[in-house]
């Protein structure tokens, strides 16, 4: 134990150029002598005082901790903390009586020796020594530290400056570090990272309910009311209204054919056009109007005159489905040069 201590002592001494520890040892042996002079009972008392024992152990632990925690600062060439620690340890050793305390003393010595060794290796290594504190200091400037006006913090913080770092501080370091790394860029993707399955069907229903735009919502209910609420009444009324227009156009000039498309198309509204086609189909179905192709093979429409009605029923009945898309609707408007609707909107009563 003593030998180990002496070894560590030499390291430390060489390192710090101080004789602190040796002097301490002197004191320590003095102290030992002094203790011997005291009565046995007295000694027993002090050795067994639990409070004192605890205090000594606690002080040792503090010392060990302080070496471990402040290792870097203590390693700096200008720092004399190691000497101070060893002097303190010598004072404590005076009162060491029990094995537990001695063990702590040994542990402190291991830590101190190790530190001393490193300090020594710094002295002997060639070239500049690397000082992590100075490094941190430079790095803070590189990161764009906003230093505070008064430098009080600096001293307190073991050399670390006060102030605050900008948001992108670590990004700056990362950006600078990029060229030192030969990292592979990573490939990130979303498609294929989870199992493909269609969304739950419930959303489809929701969609159907939600689907029509604000405008459509406004129109749809009235249309529906007309269809459902009237029980064909509205349709019949509209069919009659359209028949009225057809007849009046025919009467205006019975010799000139009425183009079916010109009749049904509303150039301002695709939906009105579809409605007109729908209602006109009732006229044809009920034999109130007939359709034929003119010399240019274009469909024409004309009202069936009273007398013809019955006969018409027995002649030829043909069915056809008229389909129209917004695109063909547009093309027809262009082709027939339709500017106005022949079936004006019903008066809103």
């Amino acid at each position: 134990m003593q030998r180990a201590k002496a070894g560590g002592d030499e390291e430390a001494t060489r390192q710090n150029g101080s004789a602190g520890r040796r002097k301490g040892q002197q004191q320590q042996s003095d102290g030992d002598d002094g203790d011997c002079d005291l009565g046995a009972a007295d000694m027993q008392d002090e050795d067994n005082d639990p409070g004192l024992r605890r205090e000594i152990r606690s002080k040792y632990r503090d010392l060990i901790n302080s070496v471990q925690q402040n290792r870097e600062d203590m390693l700096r060439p200008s720092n004399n903390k190691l000497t101070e620690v060893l002097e303190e340890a010598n004072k404590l050793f005076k009162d060491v009586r029990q094995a537990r305390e001695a063990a702590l003393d040994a542990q402190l010595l291991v830590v101190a020796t190790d530190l001393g060794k490193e300090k020594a290796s710094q002295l002997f290594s060639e070239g500049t020594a690397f000082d992590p504190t100075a490094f941190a200091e430079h790095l803070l400037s590189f990161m764009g530290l906003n230093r505070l006006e008064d430098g009080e913090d600096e001293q307190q913080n073991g050399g670390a400056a006060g102030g605050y770092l900008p948001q992108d501080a670590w990004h700056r370091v990362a950006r600078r570090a990029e060229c030192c790394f030969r990292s592979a860029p990573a490939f990130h993707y979303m498609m294929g990272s989870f199992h493909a399955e269609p969304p739950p069907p419930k959303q489809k229903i929701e969609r159907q309910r939600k689907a029509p735009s604000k405008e459509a919502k406004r129109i749809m209910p009235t249309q529906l009311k007309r269809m459902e609420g009237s029980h064909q009444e509205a349709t019949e009324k509209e069919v009659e209204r359209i028949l009225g227009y057809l007849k009046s156009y025919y009467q205006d000039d019975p010799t000139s054919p009425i183009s079916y498309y010109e009749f049904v198309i509303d150039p301002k509204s695709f939906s009105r056009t579809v409605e007109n086609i729908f209602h006109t189909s009732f006229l044809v179905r009920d034999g109130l109007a007939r359709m034929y192709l003119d010399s240019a093979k274009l469909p024409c429409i004309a009202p069936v005159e009273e007398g013809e009605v019955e006969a018409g029923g027995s002649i030829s009945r043909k069915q056809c489905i008229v389909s129209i898309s917004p695109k063909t609707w547009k093309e027809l408007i262009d082709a027939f040069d339709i500017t106005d609707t022949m079936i004006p909107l019903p008066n809103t009563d």
Partner: protein
Amino acid sequence: MSRQMGDSHRRFLQTMMANGIVDEQGARTLYQYCCETHNTQHAPDKLDDFIDAINSNLQPMFMQIRKGMSEDNGHQFYALVNMTETVVTRMSSDYADNELELFRKTMDLIVVSENGTASSTDVLNSADTLTTKKLKKSETEHLLNRLVHDKWLCENRGEYTLSTRCIIEMEPYIRAMYQEQIKVCHICHNIAFQCQICENSTCGIKIHNPCVARYFKGRAEPRCPACEDFWPHEIPEVRRPQSQSRR
């Protein structure tokens, strides 16, 4: 057959990996930079050829550099995408299972919405319905920020939209999974999320805002290109890509 790649192609591909998405102007300057760095010939009008050479080599891995339009400003972008789903691709570690589930729920919300957005409130609420592992509200918020940071979602005043990168990569998936719900733009025929809709109920076509801007530019009275109804929406300005100074 795959075409020979040089270091210029590899550098371009690596930049695409690191960024995920690059706008057209950026891709052009990057192309030039890669060629200059490796002393290879640079033909300014051959960017798509250059990218095709990379794509022919990526094809066996089901990867691709794909071009697409930003719904926001109408500019063209290039994104590096994955095109397959396998046991291996599902091992992707960027997001946990419940995080991916939340992303999909957000996507559901956006797809079924009228205007291609999902409000943060709706997304937060949908976090309660996760079947994998519940996410706390704060975790969901953090996740949404990450999804925005990683360029899968965009956020504007509490409304989330699918990012250009996401649309470019996910378009085939969305078309397959949401067949009924999606609509394509009447002008460019790509999926339309953020767009204007014809108010004629029987028409109801969609047009991307930038496509609206281009289509109606210089027309006196805007009418729906499908049904000729009056187009009642505000017509946005055509936004040109800011020309960057070439080095």
